[in-house]
């Protein structure tokens, strides 16, 4: 007996199977009515029946009002910093305004790595000691469907209405009940202008063909984030990265393997490619838009003409977080257009906040038309969001990808 509601929930979870047992579902203190229905329906059947719904994350007693602190885990270089003093202006203003002390950790370097770090606690239903985490779409989806993220209380986040329409409904979290975007960005080609001129005789890299030009042998890196590297290669081969077949995937893997084995691709990296571009070891890369803008004028970036990737990093409140309301107040604060503009002006990624472009006039007029912060339609049209993968596909594709890059 599957109710309409339950079907919707199952669809939300997608094919991504939840691994939360019924027992844990019942243990969870903050059961939403949907999960109650799921659990009740599952009572007569087997465990997998209840596990197919979106489990609700356990909530702890909210200490927010008594204990005015909040612990936030974010990626490195992902918030505005005053270069002279090393302080974080928007974060300081928030602390002054609310009296809440924020412990800001830059300890998310990689989605998988961060998940591996806290996974045991999440599975055992323990507090991971963080009230706010920032994770990329697919990992955020995994947390939500596993019941590791708490439902947001939008009453504390009136500014969430400022979320740009394009991101209001996403497959892994329809209606944004559990997550709010922090920043979005593009998987792009990036290059050192002068070195490219010296080797290829051009100042702009427009295609993956040029990236794989033998003249650049050993001077190219690609990202270790599977979805960005493979998304660009899939699009290059004419497939749609948001909807492709196994055959198309295999052919893109074959291309990557070739380029790695031939020595064209020197290394496969996370954020490290920025350093390699600066030291001159590498001339052209598959990288992330904001990083390359941040490198300065000697470098340029662009989507390959066959298309790039578009991803979003999302704010989530982990199960059992002790300062849920404080975390929601942070979300609300960063959804004020002016604050969003200040962050975007520094990190150079796409802000998800409506009105930030207006507010940018006061923050930094030169950035009002910055295409990598406020991307024009043609850039959005030429970028793909990677296809959602279920657990089995995720594992299979990760294995193919890691094997191609020497693991």
């Amino acid at each position, binding site marked *: 007996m599957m109710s309409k509601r339950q079907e919707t929930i199952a669809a939300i979870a997608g094919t991504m*199977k939840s*691994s939360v047992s019924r027992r844990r579902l019942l243990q969870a203190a903050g059961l939403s009515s949907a999960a109650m229905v799921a659990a009740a329906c599952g009572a007569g059947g087997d*465990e*997998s029946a209840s*596990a197919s719904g979106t489990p609700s994350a356990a909530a702890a007693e909210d200490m927010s009002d008594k204990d005015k602190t909040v612990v936030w885990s974010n990626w490195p270089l992902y918030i505005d910093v005053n270069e002279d003093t090393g302080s974080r202006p928007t974060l300081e203003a928030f602390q002054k305004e609310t009296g809440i002390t924020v412990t800001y950790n830059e300890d998310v370097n990689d989605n*998988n*790595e961060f998940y*591996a770090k806290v*996974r045991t606690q999440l599975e055992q239903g323990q507090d991971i000691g963080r009230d706010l985490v920032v994770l990329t779409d697919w990992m955020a989806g995994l947390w939500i469907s596993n019941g590791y993220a708490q439902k947001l209380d939008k009453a504390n986040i009136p500014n969430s209405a400022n979320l740009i329409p394009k991101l209001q409904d996403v497959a892994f979290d329809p209606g944004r009940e559990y997550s709010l975007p922090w920043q979005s960005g593009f998987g792009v080609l990036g290059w050192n202008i002068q070195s490219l001129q010296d080797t290829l005789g051009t100042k702009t890299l427009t295609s993956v063909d040029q990236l794989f030009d033998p003249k650049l042998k*050993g001077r190219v890196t690609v990202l270790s984030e599977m979805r960005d590297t493979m998304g660009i290669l899939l699009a290059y081969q004419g497939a749609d990265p948001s909807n492709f077949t196994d055959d198309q995937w295999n052919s893109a893997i074959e291309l990557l393997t070739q380029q*790695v*084995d031939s*020595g064209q*691709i*020197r*290394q*496969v990296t996370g954020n*490290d490619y920025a*350093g390699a571009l600066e*030291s*001159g*070891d590498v001339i052209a890369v598959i990288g992330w838009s904001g990083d390359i803008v941040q490198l300065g004028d000697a470098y340029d970036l662009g989507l390959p003409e066959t298309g790039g990737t578009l991803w979003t990093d999302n704010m989530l409140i982990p199960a059992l977080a002790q300062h849920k309301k404080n975390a929601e107040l942070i979300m609300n604060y960063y959804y004020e257009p002016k604050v969003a503009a200040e962050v975007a002006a520094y990190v150079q990624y796409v802000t998800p906040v409506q009105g930030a472009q207006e507010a940018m006039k006061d923050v930094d007029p030169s950035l009002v038309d910055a295409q990598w912060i406020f991307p024009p339609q043609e850039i959005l049209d030429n970028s793909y969001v990677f296809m959602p993968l*279920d*657990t*089995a596909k995720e*594992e299979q594709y*990760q*294995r193919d990808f*890691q094997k191609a*890059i*020497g*693991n």
Partner: protein
Amino acid sequence: MVAVVPTSAQASPAQVAQRSSKTGYALLAPGMLWLIVFFAVPFITLFLTSLQAPSPTQAGKYVPAFELANYGQALADYWPQFIRSFIYAGIATALALLIAYPLAYFIAFKAGRWRSLMLVLVVAPSFASFLLRTYAWKTILADESFITRTLNTLHLLPEGRILNTWIAVIAGLTYNFLPFMILPLYAALEKIDPRLVEAAGDLYASPTTAFRKVTWPLSLPGVVAGTLLTFIPAAGDYINAQLLGSTTNRMIGNAIQVNFIEFRDYPTASALSVMLMAVILIMVFTYIRRAGTEDLL
């Protein structure tokens, strides 16, 4: 005649043995407890994990089983990384020995009042984090660096670069584990009585012969300890291969890391770890036997 046997003042040998064995256990207890909690229990967990099978109902989960096939599969997938690890670690160990021996010899016999300072200098790089030191090597070996340019002018580099090649990985391993070679060598050399070498000279041994017949054999325990302390961590290291190497230089540590973190395939990762430990253990035993210093164990 009745022999006067002192009864009260002296304990019987059995009692002494019992008491000393109690003291022995007391002395052993902290170490044993430490080993049980932080080595034996984790190792058993690791071993049991290596035998788990995928859960039939939940994708991405594993259940207890006795899946010996995990080992065969892991070996089939990752034998190149295994072999590469032992080759890289072997070369790095040999290089470290070549660099460390003269240095340790110098510190032990020739450094005089600079001895303590030199020892501190040997250890000093370890005050900086392992990761930081390896990152520094990225700069040292970068394409535009002095070293790479010089070697390139001499056409000594087959790939035209050092960074992101096997050369950089081995250089990094050698550098990072060098202190572990120098210190045991120094300790062994320092213990040698210089009069023995003098005596060899008095008996008409040339300096080379004296070194070959006296100094080298007496320093062997240091050589064995140093090579083991260098080889074992080098074989399991993954930082050097990841930061200084390229996609074709991955070692077994990288394979374990990828299985644990990217694939979340705990059984395969555990099987690889257990195999790495087993292979190293076997190699160490054979090596120590051949080196003829069982007393080290």
